[in-house]
């Protein structure tokens, strides 16, 4: 058995260790979150779409992840009719871990280029420090 003074000392030590751990955990958590959010806010997924006599050519590029290890999983692009809002075409494919992907597909006949509206998203697996998070990024679709 420890003596009375030694025991008091031991408990004091335990309390200060607990306090230090709580403070360290809190500051690390906030610091990591702030950095992570900052890095992610610079990242984006861009999809450039070009209409060429009856076909749609698209190119998906994921960029801006400096300092983060990324593994793009897949993408989906929805082409919609501007007036009625119904989906005319859905393009989706795996990215196989590459930052760029291209697709070619047939356009619907009878629709003007101006009446196509496109939107989509991409699933990306992001690794940083001990974090491993699956995130979906909205695609910024630019129709040329």
């Amino acid at each position, binding site marked *: 058995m420890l003596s*009375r003074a030694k*025991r*008091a000392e031991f*408990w004091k030590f*335990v*309390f200060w260790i*607990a*306090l230090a*751990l*709580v*403070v360290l*955990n*809190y500051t*690390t*958590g*906030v610091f*990591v*979150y*702030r950095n*992570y*959010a*900052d890095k*992610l*806010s610079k990242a984006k997924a861009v999809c450039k779409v070009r209409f060429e006599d009856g076909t749609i050519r698209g190119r998906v590029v994921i960029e801006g992840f400096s300092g983060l290890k990324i593994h793009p999983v897949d993408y989906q692009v929805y082409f919609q009719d501007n007036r009625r809002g119904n989906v005319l075409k859905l393009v989706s494919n795996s990215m196989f871990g590459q930052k760029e992907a291209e697709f070619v597909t047939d356009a619907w006949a009878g629709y003007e280029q101006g009446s196509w509206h496109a939107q989509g998203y991409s699933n990306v697996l992001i690794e940083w420090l*001990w*974090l491993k*998070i699956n*995130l*979906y990024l909205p695609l910024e679709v630019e129709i040329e």
Partner: protein
Amino acid sequence: MRKIAFFVAVMILSYHAFVFELLLDQFSPLPVSVVWLLSLVLSWWAGRELEHFSKTLLVLTVSFIIAGVLSYVLIGYYMKETIQFVVQTLTMKAVSVSLLVFFTSSIMAAFLGFMFKPRQ
């Protein structure tokens, strides 16, 4: 008085760190349960060092309210960049239930610390 101020500061820190641990679960190195236990150890400390349990209860309640307001203000400041998955984990229901359980268990831990403190 100095002791009370010290433990109010410690408990504010403990409550605030716990609320943020609920939100920043995967970003911080320690898991939620460990931070919970550490906070209970701190509550134990508050119960052990103050002479009367009424003082401990006052310290815990005051610091709980201050930490709640502080966390509310700081969440708005720190988490401007809303990331999708953080919003998903931030279900108000889960947070409030956890806080209730946390507060009651903290008071219980402080009371046990008061009960088992060495007496002259």
